[in-house]
Every structure is written in C-alpha cells, then in structure tokens.
C-alpha cells in the first residue's frame, strides 16, 4: 500500500471513531491503534489477575462463612475479568501465552496498587471500597471506547466492580459499627489504602504520556487529575458516613470550585512501586510466575490429551 493510500485509510478510520462507530477486530486499523490497545487491555487483564492475590490472601482466614463465600466470589469475578480482557486482547492477534510472557518478564505493567500487602481483614473492605471504587472511575468511560471488544468487556466488568465496591463498603460499615477494635482496624486500613488509591488514577497530567492520542481513540475521556478529583469528591462523603477520617490534613471542601482540595501525593513512592520496588512486587511476581511454571506440566498434559483424542476420532472416522 502506498503512503497515500494508508493516509486515506487512516482518515476514514479516524472519522468512523469520531462518529462513535465501533472498531471491530476484523476492521482495518493503524498499527499504532492495535499496539496501543494490546498494551492497555493486557495491562488491564494483568491487573485483574495480579489483583486476585492480595484478596486471595484472606480467603482462608475470612471471619465468617458468609464473608468467605463473598470473598471467593469476588476473587473469582476478578479471574473472569482477566479472562474476558485476555480474550478481547487475543482478537488483536496476540496469544494469551505471549501476554503472560510479557507480564512475567516485567515488560508489561499491572496496576501498582496490588503491590501493597493485605495485613488485616479490614483491608478486604478498604480494597473493595477504594480500589474497586477507583477502578470504576477509571473504567466507566471505557464502556464507550472505540474498540468494540474492549467496550463490551467493560460494560460487564463495570457492573461487577460496582457490586464489589458496595460489598467493600459494607464490610467497612460493619467494622465501623462494631467494637472499638473493629473500628480501629477499619481506620488503619483507610490510612494505608487511601494514598495508593489516589495514585491508582495515574500520574499527574503534567507527567502523563500517551494522553492526546488516547483521547482521540476514546481510550481516555478525562485526564488523570480530573478522575482523581472525581474519586475524592465521591469518596469523602462515604468516609463521613462511616465515621472514618481521611488521612490528609490538607483535605478541605472548596466552596468556590465545588470540590475538595487535597494534600500533596508522594509521587516518589508511586514511582518506586511502579519500578518494582514496592512492598509486595516481588511476592506478587513470584506467585504469578510460580503458578505458571508449576502449572506447565498440567497444561502440557491437557494439550497432549486433546491431541490424542482428536487423533482417535480421526482414526475412527477412517
């Protein structure tokens, strides 16, 4: 194809997106669009499955049967999210094995929030309330993103994430209306998860790359700082309902702008964790790589068995 023709195709393509048409896997797309989508969707898929680990850490210790079942179901939902997102990614011509390889080698990123440890039961509440809460804010705009499979996956994922968010809030609510020890546990969890949750919405606009192109492709509709403000404005009143204190002495309602002012985020901490030096990065990667390597003989066996069955069928047919 000549450069001229490609330029033409690109114009038609961008116009389709501008008209809010969905791009489907079989449609022509610029190479950069394909790569960007593989990167973002796989990063999202990896976050779902690495995200199973901090909560999985409490399944065997959940304090009641009802909570144990709810936590199992939640972690299972996250596995399901991983699955649709990997499948959506595969429509762009990359295999799940390749995507895993990128995660395991450290080439692909996942959400940094999962590199913090879950040290008390209240962390199950705080994660649902804050982390799933921030994820929703990030993801709701993606329900209208331009790539069809991603948009459709997000519709389903967002529904479940909002269920998780309510469930997390409900865990916190129970703790906050329990004994003083339970309330302390809840406050302590909020203290530890608040700032990492704010960081989840991404680096501040001044430092954020890829944004302009992403806006055009509807991979991003609001800036990181706007999303962060939205999260804070939504969450502070919920903390009030719980009777918990947000660990930010600079947090204060700003009548004029109709939203909260808040303190300085420790971006050094953010970059430290992103670069692999957070409290649980090594543990998370060991768990994922370990599961993959220890499971290799199982996957090989399943493949070999399927091949033998297929061969037998052929033999019988002849």
């Amino acid at each position, binding site marked *: 194809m000549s450069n001229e023709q490609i330029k033409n195709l690109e114009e038609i393509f961008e116009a389709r997106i501008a008209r809010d048409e969905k791009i489907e896997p079989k449609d022509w797309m610029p190479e950069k669009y394909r790569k960007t989508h593989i990167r973002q969707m796989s990063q999202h898929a990896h976050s779902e499955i690495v995200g199973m680990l901090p909560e999985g850490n409490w399944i065997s210790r959940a304090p009641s049967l009802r909570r144990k079942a709810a936590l199992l179901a939640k972690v299972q939902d996250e596995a399901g999210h991983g699955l649709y997102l990997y499948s959506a990614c595969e429509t762009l011509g990359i295999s799940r094995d390749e995507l895993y390889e990128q995660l395991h080698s450290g080439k692909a990123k996942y959400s940094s929030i999962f590199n913090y440890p879950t040290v008390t039961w209240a962390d199950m509440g705080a994660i649902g309330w804050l982390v799933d809460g921030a994820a929703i804010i990030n993801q709701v705009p993606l329900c209208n993103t331009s790539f069809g499979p991603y948009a459709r996956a997000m519709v389903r994922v967002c529904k479940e994430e909002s269920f998780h968010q309510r469930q997390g809030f409900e865990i916190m609510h129970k703790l906050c209306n329990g004994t003083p020890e339970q309330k302390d546990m809840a406050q302590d969890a909020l203290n530890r998860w608040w700032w990492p949750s704010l960081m989840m919405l991404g680096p501040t606009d001044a430092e954020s790359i890829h944004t302009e192109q992403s806006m055009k492709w509807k991979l991003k509709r609001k800036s990181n700082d706007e999303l962060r403000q939205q999260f804070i404005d939504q969450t502070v009143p919920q903390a009030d309902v719980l009777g918990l204190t947000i660990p930010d002495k600079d947090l204060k309602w700003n009548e004029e702008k109709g939203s909260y002012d808040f303190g300085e985020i420790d971006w050094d901490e953010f970059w430290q964790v992103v670069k692999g030096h957070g409290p649980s990065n090594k543990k998370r990667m060991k768990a994922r790589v370990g599961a993959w390597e220890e499971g290799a*003989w199982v996957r090989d*066996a399943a493949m070999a068995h399927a091949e033998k069955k297929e061969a037998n069928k052929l033999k019988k047919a002849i």
Partner: protein
Amino acid sequence: MNKKHLFDYIISIADNSLILAQRLGELCGHGPTLETDIAGTNIALDLIGQTRNYYQYAAQIQGEGKTEDDLAFLRLEREYKNVLLVEQPNEHFGYVMGRQFLFDVYHLLFMNELLKSKDETLAAIAKKGIKEVSYHKRFSGDWVKRLGDGTEESNQKMQEAIDELWAYTDELFDQPEADKTMIAEGVAVDTLKFKETYYEEVSTLLKEANLQVPESKYFIRGGKTGVHSEFMGYILSDMQYMQRTYPNMEW
C-alpha cells in the same frame, strides 16, 4: 430421636464440605490456568453453600442459640469430624484433582441416598446439592483422565497422587455410633450400600485414564472420630484466626 446423634451426624457431613472448601480456597489465584482457578472457586463456593445449610440446621437441632459460624469456626480440633481425605494438602494439581475426584464419586453416591432421608431438611439439602456435586465429579474426573492420559510426566504425577490418596478412601464408609443410630432411624445414609459401586466407578475411570488401580489394602482412618492428620491444626489456625483473635464480634 436422639438429638445428639442427629447433631453429630449433620456436623460430620458439613465438616467434609467445609474443610475441602478451605483447601480449595487456598489455591485461588495459584492454579495452572485461569479456567481451573475459576472452576476450583466454583466448587469451593458450592461446598460452602452446602456447609452453611448443614450448620444452620445443626445449630437449630442443638438449640443452644449458636450460629453457623460458631459451629464452623469455634470447635476444638478433636470435635471436627471430616474424613482425612479432604484435609490432605494441595501438593500439586494432580493431588488436588485426585482428592477431589475420590471425594466427588463418594459425595454424589452419598447425596443420591441422602435424598431419600426421612429427615426432610437433609433430603432438601441433598436435592439442592446433587446438580452441583455431579458437576464437581465431571470436572475432577475429566482432569484425572487428562492428567492420566496426557504425558509421561503427568501420568506419573497423577498415579503418585492416587496411590497416596487411596489410603484415605476406606474411611469414607466408616460408620461411627451416630451414623449407626441415624441409619436405623432412616435418617442417615448407609454408606456400605454403595461402597462396592464406589470402588467400581473409581476403578473404571482410573483405567480409562491409563492409571493403575492401587492394590494396597492398608488404609488410614481417624477423621471421623476426630483424630486428624498433622495438617488439620494448621488448617484450623488459619480458618479460626479471626474468630479466636476477636471473640464475640460480628463481621
């Protein structure tokens, strides 16, 4: 009707599902594929659902105002009556599927009989659970076949798991005192009725999976009388951690 025996009987059924679910829960996020993680979690969820029904009913029979959680979390190790099979560790995926399969075949035969119990609540729990348990059995049986038939390595691993776990199968059919009285009342399942069928079904599938049916007649028992393996204390220290550390609180 002897209330104490009925209570003990229900508890022994419930404990099997609880401890097996606890073992499956440990694996969540660490399995060989996302699909097996999802399926394992499903099975654990089904088992917890059944267990809750049993404990709620047992608490009602006991009539001391206890809850399902008191029964699940606040007993002494010797008071848990699950079979040794379900507390065996997740050594590798072959063990997990072998343990599941050896239990599921029993569980489905058991549920089919419990369906006929004179106790309406137990019969209703069985009715609800049968579909779930037949799915579990299909899932674990398929994996035993895949691993048995797959590669040389997987065949060896699966065989090793079956050989070790075999020693715990005979206990499934033990009938402590509570079972005997409840069988006489038409409430409990007479497990001896389907013991032969159990070993036939298991053997048929093992053969289909290119696995040897173990010939060993040395069996290990104890769980049903509350004498557990060394693993049990650790299972309970995880499971009971919150309830023991923070007594009398709601979650």
